[in-house]
């Protein structure tokens, strides 16, 4: 039991117990002190100076970095404080590209809201217009440094929650910026596209990339058949943009809105989430029985996959080869729909609505394309579809709900809970336990993997076997777990990883302003849909069965299923090495070839190989089309990649890969 203590805020007595700082106590008292740099899940930075309060006997202090104490007397609204806050905002605005009317953050922008709340009607300081280039190199996010107020929220999310640190403060004084290393393009660094930086950014400095125009253009093109898939989390997030209760399921209304927009068919990503379970749980049972390549890691989250490709390539064989549900949907749609809908393959446009910014990146991966045409053509986020609905002047609440189109509109509870951290694991267990025991699973709830804890573990007894599972979210938590597995400190059979806090329900494309309370309610929304579904196990999805029978070689794990529903991973670990350019091609499209040279110990073989590769490239006449780099690392690894795919470190296999790669350019 923690003792209850008291302090006074603006003359009112407020009780507190273990609140970390004055700010939390004051907010508990119902006073919403403005802040930019405070997020309860992040460390305290104390830079924005908005949360200033007067503590009697101690003076003016930042509430976020002051511990509450018994008997403190606090004022939040003195003349001096109001004036100081206003000046702070004015200083920020003086240095800000204030084009609110064309800024997609407008209306949910904290800077705009606080300026309005504090009554800042004039900016008394003049400063030159900021003209830093806007970074649109990433398929997932746009970075506009001219709108950055240096609150550091994104920096802390990326390093503390994701354990990455792709962006940080650089330079000093008036040149200070938040940027990737060497001010490089965000699309070319270790960023995994999770969008959590954009989710905490108070301004329009970091925004999910907008692809709505592409969707409108496809819809207006009469020669196209435009279909759409909706991810699980979208239905429990979108409502927030239309004043619905947090976590309310608006799937039916969204289907209606999309039909109004002109989408021919509206399908459910939950269908391929169920299909993912067929494939992935089958993969798990196989590996578990053979005790091979364990733990198996889930592969639904493209941010996690890119993270593993960059930081833990040694675990790539452990990651399920299943495409994400979005990727599976794309492949199945391209295979099945042209014939079913009577359109040509090149006239089929597959749109995805995702809670996730990383899915924009995933859809652009060349390996998720068929004959050069991406399996998913356009990915938009929950917020983007919300904006499209707004722009049509309709209120989601006024629409009569409609059902998804069949057959890819049928889904089970197992598919819908994919959006919550622990959901993929639970759905896979519903499948695997039943298959391993050979008995009908009566209680389908695996509550130990649910909830807002960023690390959940359980040991199950399945037909006399111990199955150890772990569920983590946030890549910093994943990193910790991976290191424990690497060192042998922890041992698991099956691990689910999601990058975003609480799972995809708080993906970078969901409505702005998620807190843990909101995340919980969105998760509950998904579990309610599950609880009220007649079909709860993915294996009960008879439409998936039918799809396998008619199009996918009969069942999970078939050759055809493998071809369409699985993928392979890249080794991106050389991204971080010191590079020495050996050959620089001149053509626009070039093949990247990188040979790792360990700087410690024996590197004679690697150096020879690099020499032989450079000679081959020159003599074969490919020098125009190849960028050859040496990558130097202190670690003792021999890694050769061609177009990011790891190749056996022998001159013959490298030659073969280069030849193939150059021809495919």
């Amino acid at each position, binding site marked *: 039991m923690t003792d209850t203590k008291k302090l006074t805020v603006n003359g009112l007595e407020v009780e507190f117990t273990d609140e970390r700082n004055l700010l939390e106590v004051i907010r508990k008292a119902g006073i919403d002190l403005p802040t930019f740099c405070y997020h309860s899940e992040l460390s305290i930075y104390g830079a924005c100076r908005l949360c200033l309060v007067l503590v009697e006997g101690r003076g003016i202090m930042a509430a976020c970095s002051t511990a509450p104490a018994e008997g403190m007397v606090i004022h939040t609204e003195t003349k001096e404080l109001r004036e100081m806050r206003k000046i702070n905002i004015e200083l920020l605005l003086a240095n800000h590209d204030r084009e609110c009317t064309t800024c997609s953050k407008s209306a949910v922008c904290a800077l705009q809201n606080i300026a309005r709340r504090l009554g800042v009607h004039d900016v008394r300081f003049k400063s030159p217009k900021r003209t830093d280039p806007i970074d649109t190199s990433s398929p997932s996010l746009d970075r506009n440094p001219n709108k950055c107020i240096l609150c550091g929220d994104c920096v802390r999310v990326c390093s503390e929650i994701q354990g990455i*640190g792709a962006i940080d403060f650089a330079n000093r004084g008036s040149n200070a910026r938040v940027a990737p290393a060497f001010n490089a393009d965000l699309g070319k660094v270790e960023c995994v596209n999770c969008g959590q930086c954009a989710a905490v950014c108070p301004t329009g400095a970091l925004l999910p990339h907008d692809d709505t125009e592409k969707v409108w253009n496809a819809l207006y093109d009469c020669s196209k058949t435009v279909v759409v898939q909706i991810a699980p989390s979208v239905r429990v997030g979108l409502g927030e943009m239309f004043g619905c209760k947090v976590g309310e399921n608006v799937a039916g209304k969204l289907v209606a809105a999309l039909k109004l927009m002109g989408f021919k068919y509206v399908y459910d990503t939950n269908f391929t989430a169920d299909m993912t379970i067929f494939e992935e749980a089958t993969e798990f049972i196989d590996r578990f029985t053979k005790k091979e390549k364990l733990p198996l890691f889930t592969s639904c989250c493209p941010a996690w996959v890119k993270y593993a490709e960059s930081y833990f390539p040694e675990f790539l064989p452990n990651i399920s080869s299943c495409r994400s549900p979005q990727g599976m949907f794309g492949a199945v749609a391209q295979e099945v729909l042209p014939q079913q809908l009577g359109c040509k393959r090149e006239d089929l446009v597959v749109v995805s609505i995702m809670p996730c910014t990383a899915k924009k990146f995933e859809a652009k991966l060349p390996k998720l394309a068929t004959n050069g045409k991406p399996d998913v053509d356009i990915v938009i986020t929950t917020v983007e579809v919300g904006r499209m609905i707004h722009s049509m002047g309709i209120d989601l609440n006024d629409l009569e709900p409609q059902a998804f189109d069949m057959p890819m509109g049928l889904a089970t509870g197992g598919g819908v809970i994919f959006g919550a951290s622990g959901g993929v694991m639970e759905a896979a267990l519903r499948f695997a336990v039943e298959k391993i025991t050979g008995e009908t699973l009566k209680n389908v709830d695996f509550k130990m993997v649910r909830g807002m804890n960023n690390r959940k573990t359980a040991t199950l007894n399945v037909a006399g076997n111990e199955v150890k599972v772990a569920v983590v979210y946030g890549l910093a938590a994943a990193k910790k777990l991976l290191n424990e597995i690497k060192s042998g400190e922890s041992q698991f059979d099956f691990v689910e990883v999601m990058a975003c806090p609480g799972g995809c329900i708080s993906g970078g494309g969901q409505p702005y302003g998620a807190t843990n309370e909101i995340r919980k309610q969105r998760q509950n929304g998904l579990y309610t849909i599950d609880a009220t579904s007649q079909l709860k196990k993915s294996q009960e999805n008879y439409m998936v069965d039918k799809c396998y029978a008619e199009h996918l070689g009969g069942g999970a794990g078939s050759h055809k299923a493998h071809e369409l529903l699985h993928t392979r991973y890249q080794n991106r670990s050389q991204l*971080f090495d010191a590079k020495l350019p050996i050959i620089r091609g001149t053509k626009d499209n070039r093949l990247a070839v990188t040979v790792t040279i360990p*700087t410690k110990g024996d590197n004679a073989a690697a150096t020879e190989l690099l020499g032989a590769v450079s000679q081959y490239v020159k003599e074969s006449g490919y020098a125009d089309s190849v960028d050859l780099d*040496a990558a130097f690392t202190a670690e003792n690894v021999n890694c050769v990649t061609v177009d990011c795919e790891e190749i056996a470190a022998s001159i013959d296999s490298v030659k073969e890969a280069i030849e193939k790669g150059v021809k495919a350019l």
Partner: protein
Amino acid sequence: MQETIEKTREEVQRLAAVNEILERNNYDQSRLIPILQQVQEVFKYLPKDAITYVATSLDLPVAHVYGVATFYAHFSLNPKGKHIIRLCDGTACHVKKSSGIREKLYEKLGLSDDNRTSSDLMFTVDIVSCLGACGLAPVMVVDEVVHGQATPELAAELIDKIRAEESAA
């Protein structure tokens, strides 16, 4: 082929110097600043590959190390010229018109405030604050030799002299 192998060996040797520094500092993340200082001593500036290499070896994000390297004024991310000219712009020297010398140097070497190293990597001009020799103002230090009561003409002469020596060598 031989050329590539040579180049690669050279780079391994360059980085061996960094390895040594890292080892001397026990790969201690909290010693990032001294590590960067020592790296800068070896290369005269902080080359991109060295920054990246230090970051990965210490298991720190590259953006963080880049942030530290760009925060402190005494780190330089640009290569320095073979000859370093330090021109004082402290109060005393400023009053005695050090700016005329600066302009002369910039003009002769094709430099500006944003670009202080000549394109042939022969000269770097650093503008510094008080060198502690105010009695001699304006002061300029060329390759560690102090020149008091400097003038634009003297600056031009010194540069011509170095150039002549370099082309004779």
